């Protein structure tokens, strides 16, 4: 299907992007890789009147590690994350998760900032940033601010970003402790039916597609902190979750999967 008529501006700086957002208000949408937005526009589930293409803002792409912090520009593609030797060393979980998003063609275009801003609970990278205890950097008409990943995802496809704001970057701590991502799906390129993510030896555990937002499995984290085994801790993985039912599985099945996958992820991350 063909998207509804739309305007288009290409900008080459964050300031210009913010000015365009300011001018066009709620009717404008940032266009990053387009790998989520264009499908929505084709189904006319999204019909912005203006697209602000930020692909030309070169300073928004790149990965740098300084001290204990990995900083990644919002426009860094999944493919760049997947192939970065620096990221594989500083934060192997994030590099791995990027490599299982969609298929290679999607990974060449889709961006980390786009995946986070899209805030789909079924997406892989938001849960990774959540498990890692990352921070999102946003710029708006009132300057720039940092938002903890735990505060960022506010509802289904909703985030703490204001209509006049854009994401410029993501920060995650250097994290080389035990990690794993168990993504369960039936068709290779698909989103997870359920996914379980373990970061830093169990300090961060997050769930994909177990509710309206990506979730921290806090019951699992506190059980582990209290000395529980992986089997004991994984038993509480579905606590406090409200997964949806769809043709891939009902809520009870998803809760079962959350427990099984969390157990597998903990063991894969090297925990007893």
């Amino acid at each position, binding site marked *: 299907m063909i998207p509804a008529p739309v305007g288009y501006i290409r900008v080459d700086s964050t300031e210009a992007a913010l000015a365009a957002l300011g001018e066009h208000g709620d009717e404008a949408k940032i266009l990053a890789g387009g790998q989520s937005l264009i499908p929505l526009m084709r189904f006319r589930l999204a019909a912005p009147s203006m697209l602000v293409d930020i692909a030309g803002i070169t300073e928004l792409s790149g990965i740098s590690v300084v001290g204990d912090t990995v900083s990644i520009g919002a426009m860094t593609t999944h493919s760049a994350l997947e192939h970065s030797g620096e990221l594989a060393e500083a934060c192997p979980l994030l590099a791995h998760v990027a490599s299982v998003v969609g298929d*290679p*063609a999607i990974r060449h275009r889709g961006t980390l900032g786009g995946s986070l801003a899209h805030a789909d609970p079924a997406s892989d990278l938001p849960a990774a940033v959540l498990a890692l205890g990352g921070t999102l950097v946003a710029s708006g008409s009132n300057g720039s601010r940092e938002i903890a990943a735990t505060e960022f995802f506010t509802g289904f496809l909703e985030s703490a970003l204001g209509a006049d704001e854009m994401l410029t970057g993501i920060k995650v701590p250097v994290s080389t402790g035990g990690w794993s991502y168990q993504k369960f799906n039936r068709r290779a390129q698909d989103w997870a039916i359920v996914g379980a993510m373990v970061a830093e030896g169990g300090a961060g555990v997050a769930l994909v597609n177990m509710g309206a937002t990506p979730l921290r499995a806090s019951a699992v984290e506190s059980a582990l902190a209290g000395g529980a085994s992986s089997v004991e801790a994984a038993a509480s993985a579905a606590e406090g979750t409200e997964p949806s039912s769809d043709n891939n599985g009902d809520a009870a099945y998803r809760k079962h999967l959350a427990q099984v996958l969390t157990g597998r992820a903990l063991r894969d991350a090297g925990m007893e």
Partner: protein
Amino acid sequence: MEISLTVNGDTQSADVEPRTLLVHFLRDQLGLTGTNIGCDTSSCGACTILVDGQSAKSCNLLAVQADGAEITTIEGLAGADGLHPMQQAFHESHALQCGYCTPGMVMASISLVEEYPNLDADGVREGLEGNLCRCTGYQNIVKAVLSVKK
């Protein structure tokens, strides 16, 4: 909006509506109908082309996003010295039946072996996850890609 891009080595300038999908621009405005459309959900890969050397689904990009880019479609592969090695391999391994998925498969495979030079058969299957074939059962496609692998 005015765009200018290179398609199979030729510079093309055109006036397009921002909502025009790249695949429609290639097929309807440039007449390059080798790039197929197989779905409405960006999942079949029949429309796969190369943008600056990397595979992309041309139904999932706007033509305006390709302004300034170098595009290669299936029509741009064969040269004076014959078929591209990947086309030749598909031919020799009989990696097609109806051929509908083939342009996308060939383009995705060219990008795949560039990006992941050491793939085994499982890796090729995984790497072509975004390209669906309704006929072949994939066996000969995997065989073809492995035979060109760098």
